[in-house]
């Protein structure tokens, strides 16, 4: 029996246990919340290094404990925390130190609306998809401000490139999700996944999947679209001046955004938590998300970087047209009742 306010120690313990086991606490702090996100981000940094190493016939992290150097990210984290944070000469100190925290915050916040299972969602709001896009659309601003705050020419050039790339690819990304919204008839991510019980949306909306996937590659500044951090030209792009804990925060933000976009692909196209009921729903979700993340990481070890003019041409003259055409195609498919067998 839980009594509030507690009067005896036993009641206090009962209250604490009640709070710790409540659905709100568990979802925010443990499962789709902080602890799960931190663990996955730490795992992804190791996973990317190992995967790229295997692609390029190297070994990758090996010595830092665990199988295959699994504790390498922890060693890196400890090293980065104890390093000195160098603020460049005449840099804007509040922006330089504040923006990395904002990056982590902005990439963690959208996980509040991602459904990891039928009941594993922190905030089941009706405008979930728009909420995610509203949060991710703040990234270019933050990156440009960080680049400006560094008071250095390479970060600034990288920041400008990042800005025009992300703003340009946001538009095809939004429009390609429009056909998913039409198919599911809702902006609520839980409803979108529920609508895919009979057939994953990658089948009726394959074009939209292609456009969305290319757009998130550009949004995440992954190869072949990593012009903002082109190492041969710009040292390390917009985070050249970042060091120590600031560097760690930026990388946490970037990997969290990678995980966010992968899980968004899972929600919109790969049927979210649906799968044979032998294993629990969140396991299916995380498995699919990690497979998507693998496909986002692999090009980094395989493809060369494209030129700026190619980037602009692909975004504005190819993806945008395909995305718009796909919306009309989807409307026709729905109106003619061809998809009625899948409950659409």
């Amino acid at each position, binding site marked *: 029996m839980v009594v509030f306010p507690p009067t005896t120690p036993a009641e206090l313990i009962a209250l604490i246990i009640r709070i710790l086991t409540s659905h709100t606490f568990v979802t925010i702090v443990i499962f789709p919340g902080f602890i799960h996100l931190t663990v996955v981000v730490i795992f992804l940094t190791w996973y990317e290094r190992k995967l790229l190493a295997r692609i390029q016939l190297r070994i990758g992290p090996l010595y830092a404990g665990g199988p295959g150097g699994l504790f390498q990210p922890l060693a890196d984290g400890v090293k980065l925390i104890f390093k000195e944070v160098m603020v460049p000469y005449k840099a*804007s100190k509040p922006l330089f130190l504040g923006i990395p925290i904002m990056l982590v915050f902005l990439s963690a916040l959208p996980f509040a609306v991602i459904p990891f299972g039928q009941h594993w969602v922190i905030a089941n*709001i*009706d*405008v979930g998809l*728009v*909420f995610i*896009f*509203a*949060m991710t*659309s*703040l990234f*270019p*601003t933050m990156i*440009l*401000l960080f680049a*400006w705050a560094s008071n250095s020419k390479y970060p*600034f050039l990288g920041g*400008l490139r990042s*800005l025009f790339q992300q*703003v340009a690819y*946001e538009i095809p990304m939004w429009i390609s999700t429009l056909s998913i919204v039409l198919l599911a*008839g*809702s*902006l609520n991510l839980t409803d979108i996944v529920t609508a895919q019980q009979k057939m994953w949306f990658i089948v009726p909306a394959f074009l939209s999947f292609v456009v969305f996937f290319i757009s998130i590659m550009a949004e995440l500044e992954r190869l072949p679209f990593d012009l903002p951090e082109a190492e041969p030209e710009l040292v390390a792009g917009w985070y050249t001046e970042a060091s120590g804990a600031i560097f760690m925060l930026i990388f946490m933000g970037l990997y969290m955004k990678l995980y966010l976009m992968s899980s968004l692909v899972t929600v919109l196209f790969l049927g979210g938590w649906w799968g044979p009921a032998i294993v629990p729903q969140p396991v299916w979700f995380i498995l699919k998300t990690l497979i998507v993340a693998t496909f986002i990481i692999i090009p980094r070890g395989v493809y060369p970087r494209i030129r700026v003019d190619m980037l602009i041409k692909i975004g504005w003259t190819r993806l945008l047209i395909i995305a718009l055409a796909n919306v009309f195609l989807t409307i026709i498919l729905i109106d003619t009742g061809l998809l009625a067998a899948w409950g659409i």
Partner: protein
Amino acid sequence: MTTLAIPPDVAFVVLTVVTITGAILALQAKELIYGAMSLALSFIGIAGFFALLDAPYLAMLQIAVYVGAVVVLILFTIMLVHREQTPEMDERTASPENSVGLWLAGLLALAVSGVVALAGTNLPTEAPSATLPISDLGPVLTLQYPIPLIILALLLSASLLGALVLAKVER
């Protein structure tokens, strides 16, 4: 079981403070970048008002379009255009009577909002009587208000064409 919710009046006053402070700082900032950031803060406050008025869709679009796109355009322009430091401009923004006037105007707006928030029951902070689900937004826009929608579309296309014409003349 009590729920932990912020009373709408408190939220209204806090959002008013955020919006007005952002707007005043946007006018006051010596460095244009900080001005643009303050403007973003003001826009976020307005998005909060939309959320308070039970229009979450509008609030999200306010953040995505205004903070995500308009502020980015302003920042882009500030950074691309070579800005000359004119002492006259610095003097104008830094003059005490100017800033005092701005802060007084802000305080007045705050006082008005405070009075409105404390006045009575029929406040603008109250949620509209019939809230519209997001799924009804499309039918209402296209069936109930088709003419305003078409006029808005025309306005947007006109501004787009105008921008194209202007860009071409400059070249």
